[in-house]
Structure formats: structure tokens, C-alpha cells
């Protein structure tokens, strides 16, 4: 055992330096060089102020904004403490939460057609899901149009402009980025693109 100790100790020290410092710092250096915007967290700014990240959901409660999925991260959309409800399918607490969300959505969206989309009454996995499915985003369009006094088609066009298909035409699900839609709705972002920090 003692004979083993010298190589074991030196190997552990060497490996800690190699995989714990050299490796992550090399990745940090290369990432900053090759993909500076992504490496810094895909941040978006407006007039010199960081308004958030395109990858991280933030709370939107005003009726004239597209609203994201419910969040169980911290007190809601806490990007320093990701979290989910973790309630099981036969949980009374879960069904009660869903019932409350259904009632609130019905009241806030009297002109929206049909049943309430499931993703708007269920908390996301991370509590920071930045996306909605296109159908669910469009479901909210009547409320947004009314609150802004805009024609419904204008709001729908903004949502459709920010709809991404399956990645590489194949992977994942079609989706709409809530933050990008709202920035354009506010007329704060020029149609051509957003100010990306670091580029």
C-alpha cells in the first residue's frame, strides 16, 4: 500500500493540474476566441444595458407581452437557482396548480381559441425554458394585439418571424423565443437584428 502511495499522490496532483486547470482554462481561452458571444452567455443588450440572455427565460406578466411557461426556479425565473416542481402525475398539488393556471389563462385570454395549451399550465424542466411552441405563442396573439391596439396579423407576423423550425430540419421541436418576440414587439430592437454583447 505504501509503495503505491508515491505514484498515486503524484498522479493525482498531475491529473488535477491537467484536467482541473489546464483543460478548463484551455477551453475558456479557445471559447472566448472562437465563440465570444456564446461563451459569455448569449447576452442581449438594449441601449447599453443587459436585458437578459436569449437562452434564459425571464418573467413577462404584462398582457401586451408574450408570456413564457410557468417556472419553478426559485421564486420564479431565478437564473441563479434553476429548478422544477418535480411533482408526480398523481400529485394533488400539481393538479391544483394546473387548475389555477387554467383559470388565470382563461380570464386573461378571453379571445383565444379552444383548449388551453398544456405547456402554459406546466412548469418547465429548468424553470428557465426560453421557448414556446409556435401554436402556443400564436394562441396568445389575440390578447397581445388587443393590449397593444395592433391588428392581430401584425402580432402573428412578429411571432412567425421568430419561429425556428427543427434544427437542421430534423432535430428537436419547432419553437419561438419569447424574449426576442417581446423585444421586437416593444419596437426596441431593429428588425435586422439585436445588439449582441461582445460582437
Amino acid at each position, binding site marked *: 500500500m505504501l509503495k*503505491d502511495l508515491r*505514484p*498515486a499522490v503524484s*498522479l*493525482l496532483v*498531475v491529473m*488535477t493540474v*491537467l*484536467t482541473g*486547470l489546464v483543460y*478548463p482554462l484551455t*477551453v*475558456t481561452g479557445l*471559447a472566448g476566441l*472562437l*465563440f465570444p458571444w*456564446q*461563451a*459569455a*452567455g*448569449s*447576452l442581449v443588450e*438594449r441601449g447599453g*444595458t*443587459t*436585458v*437578459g*440572455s436569449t437562452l434564459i*427565460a*425571464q*418573467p413577462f406578466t404584462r398582457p401586451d407581452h408574450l408570456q413564457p*411557461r410557468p417556472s419553478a426556479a426559485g421564486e420564479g425565473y431565478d*437564473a441563479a*437557482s434553476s429548478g*422544477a*416542481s*418535480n*411533482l*408526480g*402525475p*398523481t*400529485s394533488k398539488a400539481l393538479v391544483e396548480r*394546473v*387548475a389555477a393556471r*387554467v383559470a388565470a389563462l382563461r380570464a386573461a385570454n378571453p379571445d383565444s381559441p379552444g*383548449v388551453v395549451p398544456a*405547456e402554459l*399550465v*406546466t*412548469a418547465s*424542466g*429548468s424553470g428557465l*425554458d426560453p*421557448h414556446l411552441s409556435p401554436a402556443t405563442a400564436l394562441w396568445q396573439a389575440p390578447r397581445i394585439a388587443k393590449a397593444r391596439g395592433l391588428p392581430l396579423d401584425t402580432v402573428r407576423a412578429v411571432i412567425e418571424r421568430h419561429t425556428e423550425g*427543427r*434544427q437542421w430540419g430534423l*432535430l*428537436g*421541436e419547432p419553437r419561438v423565443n419569447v424574449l426576442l418576440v417581446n423585444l421586437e414587439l*416593444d419596437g426596441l430592437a431593429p428588425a435586422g437584428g439585436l445588439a449582441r454583447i461582445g460582437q
Partner: protein
Amino acid sequence: MDAAGLLQILVFLALLVALTPLLGGFMARALSGERTLLTPALGPAERGLCRLCGIRPDEEQHWTGYALSLLAFNLLGFLLLYAILRAQAWLPLNPAGLPAVPADLAFNTAVSFMTNTNWQAYGGETTLSHFSQMAGLTVQNFLSSATGIAVLAALVRGFARRSSPTIGNFHSDLIRIVLYVLLPLALVSALVLVWQGVPQTLLAHVDATTVEGGRQVIAQGPVASQVAIKQLGSNGGGFFSINSAHPYENPTPVSNLVEMLFILMIAAALTDSFGRMVGDRRQGWALFAAMAVVLVAGIAVAWWAEAQPNPAFAALGVDPAGGNLEGKEMRFGVVNSALWAVATTAASNGSVNAMHDSFMPLGGLVALVNMLLGEVIFGGVGTGLYGMLLFVIVTVFIAGLMVGRTPEYLGKKIEAREVTLAVLAVLVTPVGVLGLGSLAAVLPVGLASVQDGGPHGLTEILYAYASATGNNGSAFGGYGANTLYQNSVLGLAMLIGRFLVIIPALAVAGSLAAKRAVPASAGTFPTHGALFVGLLVGVILIVGGLTFFPVLALGPVAEQLLLGTGTLF
């Protein structure tokens, strides 16, 4: 369940099959100490490291020496990680000013990473400094996975060698695995992940003023470098609490595909490395087939289960079309969440991109069964295949009993010693899950951790102990695991699940290596055909089924039957 979903599953499986011989061949050469593509660049580094550490690669070890080196190295790794976590308040790269990790949580986390479990009793962004994540967790991500592959390499040498007293050199194996396999793969894949949007920075937080005027503190860090190796090395411990469901750990469907492939890639490729190293690649593909059969069946069941809406929601006027979306992310949808859940529990990886606690009962059942079968459906890197080879020993023994012949495998007689050791290792899962798990189900101090009522609560307990014993690390996240009791007992489950399999596996390696080869005869049972694959799958399912069916009936099966009856807890 639609064509687009099916296509994504088929693409994933096709890539996995295609990568197996490519990476398998490379790893076989690296593990045998032969020349590889990377030797010109890394050979000098390898020799330098060996000299620096006083390691002589040609100094081969008996299995007991190999086991002692392994245990000493793992013990030191545990102590170092524990010390880093306890001292993180005084160490550098702690921009958020996080305090020291409490003793019980530090013990649990250090055991968890040393045993390749990566159970998350800790909350990444709220508990750990960048230094702890990099020099602590990331290091053990490399070393624990390399340890698993080293044990496999030793066991494969046991089959391949004739009348040999030794099974390799642990330190030299470890260096080769880290240098030639893990580091290059991790470096490239970390950059791919950054390209897709995973951050890699030494900043702690970004302060944002949201569009509606609120304040949002967005945690950042060296995420990509850790996510790459946690996926590759079947580790699974996230940078963030919520693991790969977090958009920063897994921002796009492409990053999701890459991370899912990483979960299974090395474990799958090692079946081919095994085939090459024992000189008959069909043997490797037979084990691949046995694993793939169970994997595909699991994917089918889990996908179907998660595509169902929760019947309790339909009555409230919720659209049933989307399936079960609680705890899932929209960029992945139901199909990628189900696929990931099956892959990560088959592989003892334990990272998650959706919350298993909120899965439908049958979806959770699939994840649970994958772990209860002993983490041999591809399993962890190295660990899955040495676990599978122990099941192979049990299988050829049973086949031998059926025809009345001394069992053989790959030209080695399988005798009482090997069968006894294999059965001991197979019994570890039931002891950890049913033994320690039932304590947690009756002691008030254990029961306090249960979140949900009814059968789902029992499933939470079962899942935690299956995950810890199987060194998986995924969780039913509602289970309150960060208590003194759970941190200690789950830590114990991880230790027995890891080392009480490694030691028998190395003992089998030593015992086989010392044997002479028996030439194949007309009476030798071929172990590369469909009959053997069927028998092997049968043995795995029967052992798992007989052991765990009663408790599964009380947990997920009962919950599935209650679903739709309006019974809530």
C-alpha cells in the same frame, strides 16, 4: 408519437452504431498500449507523465496489486475533493463568495464523484465555486470514468491472456485512458457545446435588467468544459442544479443530440474494443446486441408513456395533444426527453434533460428498471461492460447446467470461483436498493425526504437507492436528498455499489488470466449468436424481475393503475 420523433430516434441509434467500431478500434489500441493516431502528439506526454510520477508501465501487477493501487488512488481522490469542498471559501475562483460546503454534503458529493455516480444532493450554481467545479468535480469526472475503463481493460486482459500472473498496470492504464481517450474527446466536444451556446467563462453572474424592469441575476461559469466530460464519462453531475435541462447546459436540439450520444458512445464502443482485444469481434457485437435490445424496448415504452397527456388535466380543459410536459423543455419535446431518460439510466450517466419525478408512471418505471438491472444496458464507461461480463459468466454457467458441461467463455473454463464472484457482484444491487432502501422507507428520518404521497412516494425512495447503488446519479428530484441521513446512507450505497463490484471483477480478471486456454470443441456453446444473446437478456431480465417485481408493483405499476381513476395524493 409521430414520424418526426421516430426519425430522431433512428438517427440517434444509427449514429451510435456507426461510432461504435470507429471509437472501439481506437480505444482497443490505446488500452493495449499500441500505436494510435494520437501517439505522435501524446506519446512524449505519456512518457513524461509516467517519469514524473515514478510509474513504470512495463511493471505489471497481480490483480491484488492492481486493486490496491486503484483503491489507494480513489481514496486519495476522495480526500482531495472533500478537502476542496470544505475549504472552498478560502480557495481562489470563488467570485460569488460561496461558503464552505457542509461536512455531510461534502462527504456525499466527494463519494458521489469518486464513484462515478454524480448524485446531486448539492445545487451547482448555489453551492459550488468555480474552483470546486473545475479542480474538484471536473477532475473526478475524468478520474472516476478512467477508473471504470481501467477495470474493464484488466478484465478483458483476463480473458485474452493465457497463464498470466498479471493483468496490467493501473497507473499506466489510467494515464493512457485520460490522455488518449477522455481529454481529446472532451476538448473537442466542449468547443462544440460552446458553439451551440453553452457558456464558458470565469465570471460568476451577469446582472440583467429585464424587459419589464425587474432584476435577473444569471449564473455563469466554466460550464462547457464540465458538461463535456460529465456526458462522456458517464458521470452526469451538472454544473447547474437542474443539469442538462438548463438551457445553459443544453441550449439546442443539436447540443442535445451530441450530449445524448456522449452518454452512450464510449460504453457502446467498448463492446467493440472488447471484441478486438479478445480476438473475435463477433463477441463484442453480441454483447452490443444484448444491450441494444433492452435499450430499444425501453425507448419504445418511455416514448409512448410520455406522449400521453395526464388524464387529470384533460378534465380541466387543457389541450391533451402535447403529452406530459410538466418538467420538460420545449426545444426537446417529449421524444427527446424520453430518449434521453432511457439513455441516461441505461448508461449510469444520470444527467437529465427533463424531470424524471414528473414522468408518467411507466416512463419513470423504464428509467428505474434500467438502473435495477444492474446498469449493464451499456452502463457506465467500463463499469457497464464489466458488469455485463459478470452476467455473461452467470449465463454460461446456467447454459452449462442445462447441457451438463463445464461452462467456457472465450476459451476459458468458468469454474466455481468465477461464478461465485460474479454472483456476489450481481447481488450488490439488491442489497443496496432493497436493504438500504427499505430502511429509508421505514425510518422516520428517511421518510422525511419523501415529497409525493401514495405509490409515487415509494417510487421516489426506490429511485434514490437504485440510482445511488447503480452509481447512476439521476434522481426523482422531489426527494429531499440533502439531509444528514440521506447524505450518509446514500453515500454508503454508492460505495458498495462501486467497490463491491470492482473488487470481484478484478478477482475474476486475475483468476481468468492465470488459466490456460481450452480449445473450442463441438460441445462448446457459441457465444456470438442470437441464441446466446437471447439467453443473456433472459438471465438479466429474470434476475432483475424476480428481485424487484414486488416493489415495482407497489410503486410505479400501482400508480399507473390509479392514473385516470381520479385518485390524487
